[in-house]
């Protein structure tokens, strides 16, 4: 099965509303990253997390290592938030530690 399960796969939001994306991990995870991929394919780094919570503007993300999940909260969604969001889990492989991606959440924000 998927080592990083991301949900939902797609989401449509009205401008100004709030929502949350989630990733569940079935691998031992040391750190988590969240990315936003634009239509051309470029990945923008949103968060890099050890267990705990970070906030940046209207985005807030939590990594709970004990329960093996991470969430990304979007507050007051704007049109420019549209795109595909990916979470990725880094395992504990030392020099071979690898980042495993979820399948993404395609977000559409409508006015």
């Amino acid at each position, binding site marked *: 099965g998927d080592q990083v399960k991301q949900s939902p796969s797609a989401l449509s939001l009205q401008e100004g509303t709030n929502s949350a994306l989630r990733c569940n991990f079935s691998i031992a995870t040391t750190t988590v990253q969240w990315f936003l991929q634009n239509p051309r*394919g470029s990945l923008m*780094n949103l968060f890099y997390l050890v267990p705990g919570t970070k906030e940046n503007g209207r985005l807030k993300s939590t990594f709970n290592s004990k329960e093996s999940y991470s969430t990304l909260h979007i507050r007051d969604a704007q049109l420019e938030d549209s795109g595909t969001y990916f979470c*990725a889990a*880094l395992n504990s492989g030392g*020099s071979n530690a690898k*980042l495993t991606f979820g*399948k993404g959440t395609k977000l559409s924000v409508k006015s």
Partner: protein
Amino acid sequence: GALVYQYPRRTICKSGTSMRMECQAVGFQATSVAWYRQSPQKTFELIALSTVNSAIKYEQNFTQEKFPISHPNLSFSSMTVLNAYLEDRGLYLCGARVGNYAEQFFGPGTRLTVL
């Protein structure tokens, strides 16, 4: 800040030919470089992880014979897709980081089309 460049951004090659792509880290020393492929409708598949002073580790379904990688210094890596076929189409992304558990930064990708 940490930046990763990839070249070329897009390329088209004939079936059975080979294509080389490059990855450059700027502003930091990339001790580890990971090459991924994002196929249409699919998530990111890790091809291989290259760590300075360690052997390049290829994932299942990917081989050095098909995807040879060079990582000669802390700012540059290249990968070649040998004998490209339709199933090799996709966006090839290079991710670089400093240290084993550090934040990984990605280049904009090389989009490969095979005719």
